[in-house]
């Protein structure tokens, strides 16, 4: 009897855990959907104001060394998104003191000229970024 009780306890615990898990996932998904318009609205306003804020877009060279960018670009972009969209902080200062606009357009200033720039490596490494779920990829932008 006791073993059966323990087993049913275990099943109940498992069911409860699964319920919490599914609920958490559901709310996260709901949260994503709810916040999507807000992000769009936020993104429009600072973009319009950015030239006035005098954040020079120095697109002559990359924000960081190539080696660093190869390994860390996804973390940089993720951080930029959080900073600019959620905190409104749109200026990135690199170790050399150069200022950049925290925007995908900063990258596209140079890298957009090659429509396959992102695609080549990501396809090769079988990595599918989520950038192009919202943004236009260089492949989709008319040259």
């Amino acid at each position, binding site marked *: 009897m006791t073993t059966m009780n323990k087993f049913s306890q275990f099943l109940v615990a498992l069911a409860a855990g699964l319920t919490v898990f599914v609920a958490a996932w559901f709310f996260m998904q709901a949260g994503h959907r709810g916040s999507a318009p807000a992000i769009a609205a936020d993104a429009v306003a600072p973009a319009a104001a950015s030239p006035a804020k005098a954040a020079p877009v120095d697109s002559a060279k990359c924000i960081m060394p190539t080696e660093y960018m190869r390994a860390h670009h996804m973390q940089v972009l993720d951080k930029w998104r959080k900073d600019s969209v959620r905190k409104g902080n749109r200026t990135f200062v690199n170790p050399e003191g150069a200022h950049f606009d925290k925007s995908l357009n900063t990258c596209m200033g140079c890298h957009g000229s090659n429509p396959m720039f992102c695609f080549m490596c990501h396809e090769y*490494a079988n990595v599918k970024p989520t950038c192009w779920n919202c943004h236009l990829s260089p492949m989709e932008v008319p040259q």
Partner: protein
Amino acid sequence: MMKVLKPLIAVIVLALIPYVGITYGKLDFVFAIVIPYASAAILVLGMLFRLIDWIRRPVPFRIPTTCGQEKSLDWVKTNPLESPSNPFMAAVRVLSEVFLFRSLFRNTKAELHGGPKLVYGSYKWLWLGGLAFHWSMLVIVIRHARFFFETLPLPVELIEMGDRFLDVTVPAFYLTDALALAAITFLVLRRLSDEKMRLLSLSTDYFPLFLFGAIAAIGISMRYVTKVNVMPVKALALTLAKFGFDAPEPIGVLFYVHLFLVCVLLAYIPFSKLVHMGGIFLSPTRNLPNDSRAKLHKNPWNPDIKFRTYAEYEDEFREKMKKAGLPVEKQ
């Protein structure tokens, strides 16, 4: 204490070998090409050696361990899974053991409660931890196919999508990464936390756990924290997949530690308890149908006994028997 420390030190020393070799020796080719092939060869040949050795052992009689009534008379209720009567059900039983660890589900623990009272209780945590560990390891290994294939096969892609469905963090967080780490931690603590388990555990029990732990921790670190350039890693994986010998471009040293520990693990499998991954299929107490009452099983190594019939005996000694006055059947 030494039983825990020795394997821990062994793993640390093993991790330092590629670190020193790459940083100071510039031995990229050795660690990227030579050692992976060598360890793969040791794995394949070692497994073949062990499995062929086991297959060749004769198993003349049916010796399955059963937990149910075997098939006999029609009115006796049988348990076809726990006491399989045909090869198909025996295969189902082996596979259910492989995929679900049914025997671990029956695991019990014995504890002394206040003096001379020995109490047995159900203990499912080992089953759950083992299941979590093995399944996450399988998913992680399958996920690594993205390095070895130029285009990802659809099943692998589906598994990968399911693994990252939480869709948090960049790079996407994999559920199995956390599961594997949690399970390894539990499996180590399980051995360390209980007095009986500490006594029973050997350094060969801790070594694979520490090795898996180190491989997983370094892999996770490379994905989320320290980062390495993936391009030369992919190039190296493709080279290895088509048995090429091109030296890779420089990759972070952490990658070589990861790779070397994996190589050690592969080479270690055939000569350790990890060989259970092949042995489980050849275990005669599991893979035989329980049909000793239904079929006659002859011992294949019964010696070939030379029989001599009475007729032959009489043929040889007939004249002598007649002289001695003994009766003979044939005149």
